[in-house]
């Protein structure tokens, strides 16, 4: 068996996260990679939500839209997700829906064997182990690790409940019991992009983060707040305007600083993005996308803010826009965002989304790259004469001192300004030269922007163009289409602004693949003399793109 897709479905607050987490960790300790994705409603209790695991012999870090196994914690969830269960798939539920249902009375067994119906989730995890062909001791280990902090009684109760769930499911399966997954020694990091971003930021020397809570970005500031040893000052601002304002002030006073938000909050930050460009002060902004417009779907995913991020801010000023593909890339892009922001004294935007925030990937163990640079501040001893914060230089980058660094006085001005930072209305010389100075930084930045990654473009007749979090789905689609004899490849962008210099071929069909309805990458490339786009594959229902959807669109 190559892989299994498991949907654990229930209401918000019912514990699907625990069940999924325990089963995922059980598989991981057994030597198999797990991809775990969550989709849920914007509510605290009730409704429909699912925790989706994809378990495979080799890492398959992209979503599957259908389930081989559906475990429903309540009848409404069973009905809601029944159409996602592939024909011949296995339903695990408290009551029989048909003769094939593996009936596991979660709450009754929990009460009977664990002593409390609270352990229903342990019963469910045990039942899944039996249905999936996983030794029960792996689930027992994962459960023990998960509930140890609640004390011995909880551990014993959970274990008894899990063993009961395992036994009942195994008996119900009878001769249909699956072939067990042989134990392997492989180890994986099980991690989301938003787990990694705060650590990468701390590694870059970030000392200040202010943000206003907004799904799906809140986990980043929370990670700093939970881990004071990282040494990052954290403030929950009164609004996103204050969040970016504080971070920008801190940056001007020498702290590497960041903020994070989603589309609506980013809209409030726009004026300060323009300000950061004008006062040439670095700032890193994580824009974790969700579907809009307006409040949209607060807990769902989308790639709708690419053009917004690139164009946000009045006036003309450079910025960097990066869109990591996965957690490992998020580590690298976060470091790069700080590096580019500091080196060019510009805002750097990291485009994430709910999919990257909440999905855990199985990856080789992560570590930091070597040579993480400092903040690129000027050497005060090299300042000759009166310090000029906006001194004109060949590359547009002026030596930067922070407020209060030395006796050299720093003037930062949002008005058009002179080299020493004072208001000017010199339209003949100063204004044009300051515009050119700022734009020159963007031209230099463009020269070092990474081109898209290439997959099987050697002999491709069709090239899929994607960006950010869709990489896993696109790569898988290429494999599937190649398997069906199609000469398909992919170009995947993770550095989107400034747009890398590209050459395009007329003998290739280009298709864009994006989590939006209007083809924002297609439009972006088109604005730079891009290729003729044969077709646009967009997903905009709030769920992440998956390989099957891409394959279908091309079939």
């Amino acid at each position: 068996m190559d892989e299994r897709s498991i949907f654990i479905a229930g209401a918000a607050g019912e514990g699907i996260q625990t069940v999924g987490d325990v089963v995922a960790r059980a598989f991981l300790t057994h030597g198999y990679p797990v991809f775990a994705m969550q989709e849920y409603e914007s509510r605290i209790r009730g409704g429909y939500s699912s925790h989706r695991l994809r378990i495979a012999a080799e890492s398959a870090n992209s979503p599957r839209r259908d389930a081989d196994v559906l475990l429903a914690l309540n009848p409404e969830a069973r009905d809601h997700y029944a159409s996602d269960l592939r024909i011949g798939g296995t339903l695990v539920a408290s009551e029989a829906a048909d003769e094939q249902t593996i009936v596991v009375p979660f709450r009754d067994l929990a009460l009977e064997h664990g002593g409390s119906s609270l352990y229903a989730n342990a019963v469910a995890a045990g039942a899944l182990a039996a249905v999936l062909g996983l030794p029960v001791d792996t689930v027992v280990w994962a459960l023990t690790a998960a509930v140890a902090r609640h004390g011995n009684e909880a551990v014993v109760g959970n274990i008894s409940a899990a063993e009961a769930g395992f036994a009942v499911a195994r008996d119900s399966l009878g001769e249909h019991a699956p072939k067990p997954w042989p134990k392997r020694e492989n180890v994986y990091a099980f991690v989301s992009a938003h787990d990694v971003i705060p650590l990468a930021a701390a590694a870059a020397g970030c000392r200040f983060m202010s943000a206003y809570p907004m799904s799906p970005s809140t986990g980043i500031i929370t990670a700093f707040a939970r881990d004071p040893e990282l040494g990052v000052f954290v403030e929950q601002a009164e609004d996103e305007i204050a969040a970016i304002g504080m971070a920008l002030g801190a940056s001007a006073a020498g702290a590497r600083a960041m903020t994070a938000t989603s589309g609506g909050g980013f809209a409030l930050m726009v004026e300060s993005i323009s300000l950061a460009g004008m006062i040439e002060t670095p700032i890193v902004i994580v824009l974790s996308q969700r579907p809009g417009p307006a409040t949209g779907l607060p807990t769902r995913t989308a790639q709708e803010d690419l053009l917004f991020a690139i164009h946000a801010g009045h006036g003309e000023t450079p910025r960097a826009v990066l869109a990591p593909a996965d957690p490992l890339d998020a580590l690298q892009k976060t470091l790069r965002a700080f590096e580019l922001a500091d080196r060019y004294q510009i805002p750097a935007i990291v485009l994430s989304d709910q999919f990257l925030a909440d999905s855990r990937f199985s990856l080789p163990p992560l570590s930091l790259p070597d040579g993480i640079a400092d903040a690129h501040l000027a050497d005060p001893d090299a300042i000759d004469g009166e310090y000029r914060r906006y001194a004109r230089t060949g590359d547009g980058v002026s030596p930067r001192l922070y407020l209060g660094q030395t006796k050299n006085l720093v003037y930062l001005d949002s008005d058009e300004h002179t080299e020493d930072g004072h208001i000017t209305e010199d339209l003949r010389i100063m204004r044009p030269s300051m515009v050119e100075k700022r734009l020159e930084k963007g031209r230099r930045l463009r020269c070092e922007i990474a081109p898209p990654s290439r997959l099987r473009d050697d002999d491709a007749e069709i090239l899929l163009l994607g960006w950010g979090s869709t990489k896993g789905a696109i790569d898988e689609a290429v494999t599937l289409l190649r398997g069906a004899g199609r000469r398909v490849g992919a170009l995947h962008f993770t550095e989107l602004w400034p747009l890398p210099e590209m050459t395009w071929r007329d003998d290739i069909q280009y298709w864009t693949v994006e989590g939006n309805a209007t083809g924002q990458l297609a439009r972006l490339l088109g604005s730079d003399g891009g290729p003729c786009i044969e077709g646009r594959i967009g997903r905009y229902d709030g769920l992440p793109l998956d390989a099957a959807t891409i394959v279908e669109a091309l079939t």
Partner: protein
Amino acid sequence: MTTTPEYRNRVENQWCPGCPNYGILAALERALVALGRAPHEVCLVSGIGQAAKLPHYLRCHAWNGLHGRAIPAAIGIHVANPTLTTIVTSGDGDLYGEGGNHLLHAFRRNPDITVIVHNNRIYALTKGQASPTTPRGEPTRLQFAGVEVDPAQMLATAVVHGCTFVARGFAGDLEGLSALLARAIAHRGLSLVDVIQPCITWGKHPLAWYRERIVPLPVDHDATNRSAALSLALDTPDRFPVGVLYEVEARPVFAGAYRARVGDGPLARLPRTERAAIEARLAAFVVNRD
């Protein structure tokens, strides 16, 4: 106008000749000199407007940012480099109107910064519209039939929210204002100084009208008495009690817990968080049974 050589800047002043803003500038210079602060130890932070141009006219560090957004910037600057004396200096439209929400939450945070509001009760740079402090009924260049809403009571709001230093000053009283500003800057915690600064171009009343209505605080006023401070702050729009209405030292200062961990220097001078500590956290994502 007397200026102190070390704070003198060679920048053309764009204020109207005779503007009481010059009085605030002079008083601020005097206060900084009296406190022994050198220019490189001071950071002025402003938004946008005529008052917000003040930082250009003193030699020190300065942030002249966005309209209404001086307070968040000042908080960030203060947290990142607490060795600086951080002073916000902007107008009533900027700090009470566009940025009112930030000021409200600054009262709660109590950062160790000083906020000087040039209160001219009008939008001057945009040519004469009502500000949040324009009295009800007063006609303006936009509210032609008179302002139809009551003025914001920001000093009272400051007292209610426990702002630890609340004062009113008068731009026409150099001696009094410089002493008041020195006290505000020396205060540990957030200081709010609302400075009556009559607009000589758009204002309804001349400077003399204000001078007649500036009154000292009652001799027995106890600045630690919140109710007394509140009733003074809520005084009639045509009478301006000047002095420290409210001052307490009791509340913790913003970012104190963080500073207790990392010390009092600029964050830029802290060593980078140890690589091994980050690597250990990355390694903890590996799931195994060891």
